[in-house]
């Protein structure tokens, strides 16, 4: 009788020793005697419990964690392969409160299956969405996506169906689907986890997009900092091609769709869609003027759907279960679920997928368990380096695009970076401007020059408290950047700077 043991191959788990753990299981005499099969999966998202070891006992998966390779022999000696008690035992993984309280739609399969096993994907409901889409007209698919209420999960929150409709309406000899997998925002890793943990969902989503608007070629623009995701995507694409899910005449439908992974080269600006397209064309990734929109003149001048990994990876479940099913989650105009990433100084960091409407308090304390250091949480930055710093007094805000806009913040890609009370907010404001200076594409002056002048101003303010009028000058500079920049990098860098100044003005007195 063989026993199945599950260890994640997700980069976060690997960074904490999952490869060593998997090897130790395979080599252990007790495991060899019992004919143990080690299945490498995505991560459940409980990063603080990685490396997590799961043992299948009576159809249920019993978790132990975090387990180092060195701890494994004692764990197996205690009978972990039959689910025995041990101080590291967590119990049935899917019954853990942290997992059970989530609503996993996009991440339904992540952590459960071998991510590059096509059969396992299909057995877990994979490709049901595409099968349904293949029986619909392009206009029907686009309507379904519009009705689901899905908004761009990369951060801009633009209705996905409307973007698609524009591409559908163009007549062209070639259209493209481009996946923006340049997940450069600090505190975000949901794209990476989905690509590593369920790459077929992205492949299926992109194929649905191609079928909907008549695009036959797709590109996944993946940041070079994600080598584990590149491996998983390439394995999955090869398997999809070999089994008739990509390429010519997909599953006998007469439809064609090809897919290729392209690597970025360490430029944050490529997360901005028009600079990403420039980069794909082999150019300096300078932001394009708009109009024309990428939906009309995108990659190589052709109509192009460009969407984030999570947006595309959510399409299979929308097409499988229907627009109404997805739309029933969420609040207001924020429909469906959001994979939220708890990062930084947080005790229980990882991925939580919940319907919109959950508050920061619930996320930070019920899921996150407070700060990792045990000190009070002073602020969180939501939505990456261009997101506002939010003070504790606003932790009752519900996760909702409009509610966040109302407090001058943004949901963005759903990353939450937690800081305890040791943080120096003037330093973080300086960092935001420094980051903008490092990553500016240089095309527009407010971003290219403004960021550097901002760093100089903050250096003066931090060291001496600044000259009279320096804070007013900083506000003026931020105003120019916000309204005068070509894209979100220069245009939104003022958010972290001004929110830090507004909510934590004492840190700008130069006394630190």
């Amino acid at each position: 009788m063989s026993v199945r043991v599950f260890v994640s191959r997700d980069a976060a788990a690997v960074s904490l020793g999952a490869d060593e753990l998997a090897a130790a299981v395979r080599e252990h005499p007790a495991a060899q005697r019992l004919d143990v099969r080690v299945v490498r999966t995505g991560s459940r998202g409980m990063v603080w419990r990685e490396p997590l070891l799961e043992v299948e006992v009576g159809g249920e998966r019993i978790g132990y964690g975090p387990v180092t390779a060195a701890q494994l022999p004692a764990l197996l000696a205690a009978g972990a392969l039959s689910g025995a008690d041990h101080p590291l035992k967590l119990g049935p993984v899917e019954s853990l409160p942290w997992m059970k309280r989530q609503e996993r739609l996009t991440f339904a399969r992540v952590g459960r299956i071998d991510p590059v096993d096509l059969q396992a994907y299909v057995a877990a409901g994979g490709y049901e969405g595409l099968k349904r889409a293949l029986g619909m007209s392009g206009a029907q698919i686009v309507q379904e996506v519009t009705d689901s209420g899905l908004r761009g999960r990369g951060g801009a929150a633009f209705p996905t169906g409307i973007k698609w409709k524009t591409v559908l309406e163009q007549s062209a000899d070639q259209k493209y689907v481009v996946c923006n997998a340049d997940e450069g925002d600090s505190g975000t890793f949901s794209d990476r986890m989905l690509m590593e943990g369920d790459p077929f969902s992205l492949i299926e989503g992109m194929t649905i997009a191609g079928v909907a608007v008549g695009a036959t070629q797709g590109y996944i623009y993946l940041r070079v900092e994600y080598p584990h995701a590149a491996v998983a995507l390439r394995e999955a694409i090869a398997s999809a091609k070999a089994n008739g899910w990509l390429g010519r005449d997909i599953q006998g439908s007469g439809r064609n769709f090809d897919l290729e992974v392209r690597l970025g080269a360490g430029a944050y600006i490529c997360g901005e869609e028009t600079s990403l397209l420039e980069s794909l064309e082999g150019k300096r990734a300078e932001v394009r003027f708009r109009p024309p929109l990428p939906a009309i003149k995108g990659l190589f001048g052709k109509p192009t759907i460009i969407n984030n990994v999570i947006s595309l990876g959510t399409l299979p479940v929308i097409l499988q279960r229907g627009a109404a099913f997805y739309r029933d989650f969420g609040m207001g105009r924020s429909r469906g679920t959001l994979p939220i990433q708890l990062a930084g100084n947080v005790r229980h960091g990882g991925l939580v997928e919940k319907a919109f409407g959950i508050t920061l308090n619930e996320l930070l304390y019920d899921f996150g368990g407070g700060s990792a250091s045990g000190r009070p949480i002073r602020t969180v930055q939501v939505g990456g380096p261009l997101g506002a710093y939010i003070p504790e007094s606003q932790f009752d805000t519900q996760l909702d695009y409009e509610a966040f806009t109302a407090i001058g913040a943004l949901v963005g890609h759903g990353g939450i970076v937690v800081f305890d009370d040791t943080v120096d907010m003037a330093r973080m404001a300086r960092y935001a401007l420094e980051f903008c200076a490092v990553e500016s594409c240089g095309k527009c002056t407010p971003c290219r020059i403004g960021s550097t002048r901002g760093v100089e101003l903050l250096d003066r303010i931090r060291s001496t408290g600044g000259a009279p009028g320096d804070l007013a000058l900083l506000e003026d500079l931020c105003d120019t950047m916000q309204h005068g920049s070509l894209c979100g990098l220069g245009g939104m860098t003022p958010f972290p700077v001004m929110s830090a100044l507004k909510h934590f003005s004492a840190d700008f007195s130069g006394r630190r």
Partner: protein
Amino acid sequence: MTVATDDLTETIDRIVAAHAGVAGPLLPILHAVQDALGYVPPASVPHIAEALHLSRAEVHGVISFYHYFRTHPAGRHVVQICRAEACQAVHCADTEAAARRALGVEYGATSADGRFTLEPVYCLGNCAAGPSAMVGDRLYGRVTPDRLEEILAEWSRAR
């Protein structure tokens, strides 16, 4: 290690030929050159430009735009320390200081023994297990200063 001119020409020709028919081939070609040689030698620019019918300035402009492409050989291993917000929140500044101390260099430089090149990186996507670092293509989480010294010692011993 630098590359002899004949070898370089041959390598570039081979890489360019392998990318025939690729749409927007410049970045894939530059990746392939850096994968093969460890860097993109300035002497390769005219060859690449000619093959793609671009000006040298255009190719140079692309190479210099992207942080990832290097125009000089790096040390045997590249050590990247994440200095983005999520890692700052768990005091990556201490890890950065430990790296500078251990290697005796600032960012962008190579240790005297030629073994390690130290570089900053802005997010490795390991934000729930920071501070994060990468050596070669191995990712490490919870890299405290002590852990960094262990990791560097392992890489010094093994390779």
